[in-house]
């Protein structure tokens, strides 16, 4: 589904990603872990097409299509979704308007008819039930006055509504208490199936207790320095990131 080859990217002229190689297949859940400043969020933003990040080298293929030249809205319509670490507030635009506009744009691009008001409401009811969201939220402005946990839930709701092929979750666990974390994780688990894929970006292992990854990659200074199964996350939790860094150093000397 996603193939990343030797990806390098700059933010404000500074190189953050220094050659990332990664392949994600349908049905897989990958977790990218790493210390602050390692480039985790940069990777998620580059994949979603954030204009503040400049790809300087390498390739990204999504379902065989070259992503690098694609506008963010077209990436979304192709099936990429980024759940933001810091969701944006949009006063004056209701969640209903926002979701309906997004849903219909994605449908239109994929040659499907617009959702009827009933279809939209039924879908919304079904998905917001998964997340235990009060239906009243739909008439409120996007993320305005939402708590941190509500904002993250709203991100997952948008994901469930749009049904992307690849979901990128950028620090979705940050700022969540344990109950909210369970709800959000449940939303992701309801979402995932054999035809889609999830890339979790996280600093902490605790999210991976609820969303179990097939692969864990450790990012440090813009490179993936170690990959493994879910047990790698536990090892990291136990020994901290320094363990990897030392390991890496030894490998380099050898």
């Amino acid at each position, binding site marked *: 589904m996603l193939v990343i080859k030797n990806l390098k990217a700059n933010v404000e002229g500074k190189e953050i990603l220094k050659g990332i190689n990664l392949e994600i297949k349908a049905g897989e859940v990958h977790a990218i872990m790493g210390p602050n400043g390692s480039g985790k969020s940069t990777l998620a933003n580059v994949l*979603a*097409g*954030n*204009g*503040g990040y400049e790809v300087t080298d390498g390739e990204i293929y999504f379902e065989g299509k070259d992503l690098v030249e694609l*506008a*963010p*809205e077209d*990436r*979304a*319509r192709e099936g990429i*979704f*980024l759940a*933001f670490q810091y*969701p*944006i507030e*949009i*006063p*004056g*635009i*209701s969640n*209903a*308007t*926002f979701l309906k*506009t*997004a849903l219909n*744009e*994605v449908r239109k*691009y994929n040659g499907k008819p617009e959702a009827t008001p009933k279809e939209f409401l039924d879908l919304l009811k079904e998905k917001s039930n998964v997340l235990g969201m009060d239906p009243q939220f739909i008439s409120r*402005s996007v993320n305005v006055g939402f708590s941190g946990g509500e904002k993250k839930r709203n991100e997952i709701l*948008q994901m469930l509504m*749009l049904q992307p092929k690849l979901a990128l979750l950028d620090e979705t666990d940050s700022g969540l208490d344990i109950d909210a974390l369970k709800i959000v994780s449940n939303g992701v688990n309801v979402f995932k199936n054999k035809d889609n894929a999830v890339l979790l970006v996280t600093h902490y292992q605790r999210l991976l207790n609820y969303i179990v990854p097939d692969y864990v990659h450790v990012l440090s200074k813009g490179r993936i320095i170690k990959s493994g199964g879910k047990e790698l996350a536990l090892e990291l939790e136990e020994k901290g990131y320094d363990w990897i860094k030392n390991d890496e150093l030894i490998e380099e000397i050898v």
Partner: protein
Amino acid sequence: MGNDLLNMIELRDFNLPTTKNEEWKYTNIVPILKNNYVLGASLGYENYLSLPLNDYFFKDFEFYKVVFINGIFVSELSDLKGIESGVIVDSLSNLQKNNSEFLSIHLNKYSTIENGFNELNNTLATDGLGIYVPKGKVVDKPIQILYLNGDNNENVLSVPKNLIVAEENSQVTVIANYRGIKGREYLTNALTEVYAGKNSIVDLYKIQLEEENSYHIEKVQAYQEANSLFNHYNFTFGGSITRNDINTCLGDENIESHFYGLYLAHKEQHIDNHTFVDHAKPNCMSNELYKGILDGQSRGVFNGKIMVRRDAQKTNAYQSNKAVLLSKSAVIDTKPQLEIFADDVKCSHGAAVGQLDENSEFYIKSRGIPQDIAKSMLIRAFAADVIEKIKIDELREQINHLVFEHLNRVEVKNN
């Protein structure tokens, strides 16, 4: 034809402000002076009666209807049926004929002549609207005044002079709806005085949608008594050069004043908002929120003055003005002026100028929403906190619509 000549107004006879005047530093009125104008009063309005005037009104809510054409009251098009007894809504000229008492008490008592435009209005205004709400009366529906200006054959000058008097414990909402008709360049030079008696509530909406080849000048001067609340909502869309002076004097204790403003300019429009909140007495509160959206080569000016006089202890005065520039060539000049002579006060002001936030735009686009809609959503978001202050639900969505229509951008509606 001799009469027409008599009615030609030579603006240069009036001492109109130049950019050397500190209060007019950013607003050059020279383009206004190139025309000679005919007074609206001398044109008559018979030709206008066939126009679809109802289309100019904000609709889907109930209101009392008043029509002015080129500054002249048109009683046959106005509809004040059912207004509560004792409430007076009539043209200034009728009221003067009848020696209306409230006129002699209040007219020209609050606004002093500060510049040539005020003088022009004082000298030439033969009509305007007088509203009198007696003690304890609540006017149940807004009074919507259509000021339709412009002419096909003449450069017309409209000089309405308005007076709103709300006595003790009364309440009134007025919507001043300024519109133009396509034709020759014209000038509107209005002056509105507001008296908010003890414990009264006055809501004054101004929505300016004049033609793009017009000039619009208005001064609003309010005077507030104890415990009164005056809200001014100022929406500017039209006009080639617009200058608003919105002033209130808080003349007693426990008064509240709110100034909300949203102005949208594109092409080469110039919009200048000057506000003045004069705190004369203790324990009052004023709050000001102005926002501008500037596109093309337009220019905005915001000058907000807050005076806290020596007696005005325990004053709370806030001012915020923000502008978003949609193009590289749009310009805004802002100047907050705080003059504080009391020591126990809370005053703050904030100004911000910027572009639409790129990160927010990315967020919206990352949901599959195209760039033009993403920008429209952010424009709506920027204007939202001013528009949400409108108390009339139906008016709110019509103003939102005008935002997109005026900027010629795809509309985003909540439904």
